[in-house]
């Protein structure tokens, strides 16, 4: 559906997006994972036609996002809250709906739907500046959906949002994706990407470092699981693998359960045990040499 081909975008000396290529399938939820300044928002801006690549192409269903017809297919919720705060949510939704050509009964129905899914029906006549951060975020996404786009671009949609609104947004995105909407989701929270996305593109310094389904990324770049625990008893003649500091024990292994079974059979008694599997944080660390939230 969306093809990004060898796209480069520079701001003076800074290369914000450096020769990125990937493709997004219809109905897929793709995560763009990377720290702040990695080039995620610039990529989103080129997807919607707000920025022109210095080289390379962006195509949505074979057409440039510059064209009005293509833009009607895209809904974008920018990272900055893009709302008229002196207007009510109903007025915001109505205004943007009209810009996308909605009118009369269709517009009324869509506005009512958007207010409902954003959980703002009872605040429809209040001005946006009176809303909490979470309510504004929900409205920001609702405005992106008012014209029933086929591609939804969500740029850090949970920044500054309370846990309740975050869960509301997650449920909402999962439902939209289940209904067949294609979603591009940028975030620097790996938990969000792991929960929501079918595939994740890891971006840093404008470069695409990896793109795959999460299990494959973990398998390729996540490393071994880490077993840690407090040991109560170790047989006197037993050679314990890993490192032991007083009674705190730590071991990296690709087969953590096998290791624990073997130790238990050897007479080792555990006070507590934790197994930490590889995650996207570890993947990012492996690929970039630094943690995601640096």
């Amino acid at each position, binding site marked *: 559906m969306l093809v990004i081909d060898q796209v480069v975008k520079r701001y003076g000396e800074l290369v914000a997006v450096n020769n990125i290529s990937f493709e997004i399938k219809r109905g897929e939820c793709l995560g763009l994972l990377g720290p702040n300044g990695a080039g995620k928002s610039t990529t989103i801006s080129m997807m919607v036609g*707000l920025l022109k690549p210095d080289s390379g192409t962006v195509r949505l269903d074979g057409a440039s996002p510059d064209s009005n017809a293509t833009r009607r297919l895209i809904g974008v919720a920018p990272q900055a809250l*893009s709302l*008229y*705060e002196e207007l009510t949510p109903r007025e915001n939704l109505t*205004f943007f709906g009209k*810009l996308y050509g909605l009118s009369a009964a269709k517009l009324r129905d869509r506005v009512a739907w958007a207010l409902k899914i954003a959980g703002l029906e009872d605040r429809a006549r209040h001005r946006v500046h009176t809303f909490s951060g979470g309510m504004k975020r929900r409205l920001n996404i609702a405005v992106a959906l008012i014209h029933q786009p086929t591609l939804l671009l969500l740029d850090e949609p949970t920044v500054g949002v309370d846990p309740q609104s975050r869960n509301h947004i997650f449920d909402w995105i999962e439902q939209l994706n289940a209904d067949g909407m294609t979603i591009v989701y940028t975030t620097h929270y790996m938990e969000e990407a792991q929960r929501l996305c079918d595939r994740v593109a890891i971006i840093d310094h404008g470069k695409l470092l990896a793109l795959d389904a999460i299990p494959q990324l973990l398998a390729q770049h996540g490393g071994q699981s880490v077993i840690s625990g407090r040991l109560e008893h170790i047989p006197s003649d037993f050679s314990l693998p890993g490192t032991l500091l007083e009674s705190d024990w730590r071991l990296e292994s690709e087969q953590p359960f096998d290791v624990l079974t073997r130790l238990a059979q050897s007479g080792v008694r555990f006070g507590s045990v934790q197994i930490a599997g590889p995650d996207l944080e570890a993947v990012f660390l492996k690929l970039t040499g630094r943690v995601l939230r640096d």
Partner: protein
Amino acid sequence: MNLLHLALKDLRLLFRDKMGAFFVIGFPVLLGLFFGVIFKGPDSSSGGSGKISIAVVDLDNSPQSTKFLDELRKNEGLRLEIDENEAARKSVRLGQRSAMIVIPTGFGQKAGLLWEEQPEIQIGVDPSRVAESAMLEGMVMQAVATLIGDRFQQPTMFLPSVTQARESLKGNQEVDLATKLVMGTFLNQVEQMIEAADRVQASNQATGDGGGFEINFANVKRVDVTREVNPSSVSGQLQKIRSDWDISFPQAMMWGIMGCVAGFSMSIARERSRGTLVRLRAAPLSKTQVLLGKALACFLACLLVMLMMTTLGVVLGMQPLSYLKLAVAGLVTSFCFVGIMMTMSVLGKTEESVAGTGWAANIVMAMFGGGMVPVMFMPAFVQSLSRFSPIYWALRVVEGAIWRDFSWAEMLPAILVLIAIGLIGTIVGANILYRRDD
């Protein structure tokens, strides 16, 4: 259609912002009223009619006192207002009226009778109005003279006085007999003359010839000696002004328009800083449409301000000479300031910088263009600088339609200048905005 949606959204936002709305509507109205009152000047006691306002205290309330006041009212320069003694005195002291006249009790019995001591008419005039004082005394004398004439038009009115004089002469022991005889003969002849005059008058009235005596103390005829003034001089321009609001309301319109310019130039920066510009540009709109929507909103707001100010001015007494020319003035002025708004919107990148530079530019334009002090009152060298201010040209067309009585030919240069400024401003502003957002 999208242009209209964009414009209506911006107008809604403008009027939702209380401070913005104040600078577009409230502030110009206050300014128009303030300067209108100032231009009215110290002659407020005339009530704007050019007449001298006189408080009248009529303690006699007789037909003669009424007749006297009627005579005074015939003077076009006076406006008489009946009042109580203390209130009348206070109104003159406070400068609300120019003078007061008190008609004493018994005025009707003696006024106009030449041989009686004349009743004392009290006149109190504001000391600062020396010329009016002398003029008023002359008018009072003229009215009293008319009463004397009236007495002669009804000769029988003199008979009770003749009878009283005869009785008085008869009972006076100090007058010698010869004198009494002469005076008695004189009074008899006066009595016969009065009776004869009454008969003649009655006869004339019956035949429709009018009648009686008519006494003219002076035969005054006014001739036209209106001073010739250069129409472009201050006096010449001021002569054309027909209402206290003719100058202040065009100025108020300019301030309202400047409020619109400041508000809308900031709104472009605000759209950018608050992220809504991203959403607008992601919508199926061209950049040109986004900018034209903003321009249309500013244009409509400017027109609305001019319409409101005109309506308020007309309610207060402003009488535009040509509504058609005023409509054209409104259109070209609004177009001009849309261009200025487009340029101002790129003078800074943040709302604060745009607001600061925008209002600074507005104030300079207003200062030199006649938005604060009318250009005609400025020194010559400042007047020549004022041609560089769009406010000057906007005031030319607006005032040309309201009170300067400009022909289309006289309005044309200002119209062309305003259109040129609007075009240049729009092209410059739009170009910079285009490049900045790429």
